[in-house]
């Protein structure tokens, strides 16, 4: 399953690791859409096999607790959880 891409203003590479079943992940995705930034997202719970293991290892690099949502910004900043204020500030 490839990354889904949402077009918007370029604020550097923004990647959202999320779960398709999680409401906080949904709120995070909707916030990014509201901010109209360019970003990619992937639903880790929908992955299978090797692809899943690879992405899990990648998420653990940014967030060893492997919790969702995990948002990775271009400058390397990682925002874990639906931290509305933190996301708005980082992308202002």
């Amino acid at each position, binding site marked *: 399953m490839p990354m889904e891409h949402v077009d918007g203003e370029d604020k550097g590479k923004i990647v959202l690791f999320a779960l398709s079943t999680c409401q906080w992940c949904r709120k995070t995705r909707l916030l990014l859409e509201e901010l109209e930034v360019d970003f990619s997202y992937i639903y880790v*719970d929908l992955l299978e096999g090797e692809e899943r293991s690879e992405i899990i290892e990648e998420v*653990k690099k940014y967030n060893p607790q492997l919790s969702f949502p995990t948002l990775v910004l271009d400058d390397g900043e990682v925002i874990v*959880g639906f931290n509305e204020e933190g996301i708005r500030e980082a992308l202002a």
Partner: protein
Amino acid sequence: MSQADDARVDEFYERLKEQVEEVGYHLNSDVEFTKALLKSILVNEDRYGYGACPCRLASGIKDEDLDIICPCYYRDPDLEEYDACYCGLYVSGDILSGEKQLTAIPERRPAPDERIVRGEDETGTLGLESISNLPLPVWRCGVCGYLCAREGPPEICPICKVGKERFERFI
């Protein structure tokens, strides 16, 4: 889950709401948010065979996920500390009354490398010599005698519904 499953979600909601209120817990009063979570729990039930927390990555192996089957092992400590469970399905009386606002809370579940899976830890029979060395304190409801081993007493006694102030440390 298709459109036809909305009836299944509604039925789940009504049943769970009645059941948890009866034992002193509260579902999130944002019905749309709550039903979306319940729908996801049903999705997980269909997908994994158990209703894993919608906001956590289930492994598909039940023994590894016993702690995150809803209601999860982290619900009560999270209600105690943050007034809501991790996914926001369960909230405290203060959030229900509007005195506090629901926010996303930190993950309490240990990181994958730090988890203890059932069967790996040796929990032998409790001997007398170990009674003073319990991993958690035991709390007793002064009204009905309900005992529970956890960091602090529950907000409301699940048996007789009295408040936490009626609990005393027993062991």
